[in-house]
């Protein structure tokens, strides 16, 4: 293989690993935020409970 091909494979692999990792972390983060938001709605609207972490007291 050409020297430049090794270079390309190395960087493409590293970029893929970094991109995949960032995607996984960002997706997990956003999913949790959405779950917490929907949980707030359930607690406030359906059960009449208020979460302490959002309390202004």
């Amino acid at each position, binding site marked *: 293989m050409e*020297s430049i091909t*090794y270079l390309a*494979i*190395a960087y493409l692999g590293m970029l893929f690993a*970094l991109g995949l990792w960032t995607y996984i972390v960002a997706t997990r983060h956003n999913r*949790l935020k959405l779950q917490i938001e929907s*949980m707030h709605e359930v607690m406030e609207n359906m059960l009449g409970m208020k979460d302490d972490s959002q309390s202004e007291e």
Partner: protein
Amino acid sequence: MLTDKAPLVLAAGYTGMAATLGLGLLWAPQVSIDAFESPSAQRIFYWHVPAAWAAFLAFGFLFIGSAMWIFRRSEFGWKLHIAGAEAGLVTGLMTVWSGCIWGAAEWGVPWDWADPRLNTFGLLTFLAIYLVLGRQSQPDSVETRDTFSTFGLYGFVLVPVTYVATRLWTIRHPGPVVATGEGSSLDSDMGTVLLIGAISFSVAIVGQVLLSLQTSRLEQQLALMQSKLDG
């Protein structure tokens, strides 16, 4: 809160990494054709070396977090353990991958089972894989945390061993070119790109750790809300 700045810190780190890549490929001088079997592939090291440095940094976070959990039962320590293991995994894999490709280009083989640095770093990466996958497959209990923190604590021994490996036993992996104590043999332009890379990867790792800490906080908040709903 500091963790709220995580996306900003991460973006700054990634921008620096992109700049390092651009400078490494387009601006940094070519190495001597006579000195290397595969001169162009040498440019792999502009990300390989900073990724290895960032992995050491991540394993440092892992060590501190593990110690805080084992000795203080610190919740923050456990979160730092998780963040360090995850950051160590991605940077460790990047280092091993790029090292294997460079080895294939320069040595003709991707791995040397007799080289101490390669093998101790490989073990560190396997440790990170074990800690990340193991934690995800186990319930979050004190026993689980103790087990993984013990591995994180003792596994850190491999970091100084890996660092001094090329100084003590130079077999195949190239010896140090910076911080050698005898003046660097590295071209100044190459050294500049490498320095930008090291700073950028360090900033990105701090960003990753902050984001991971924030995510752990959200997980706990969600678990607390679920227990309220259930109970």
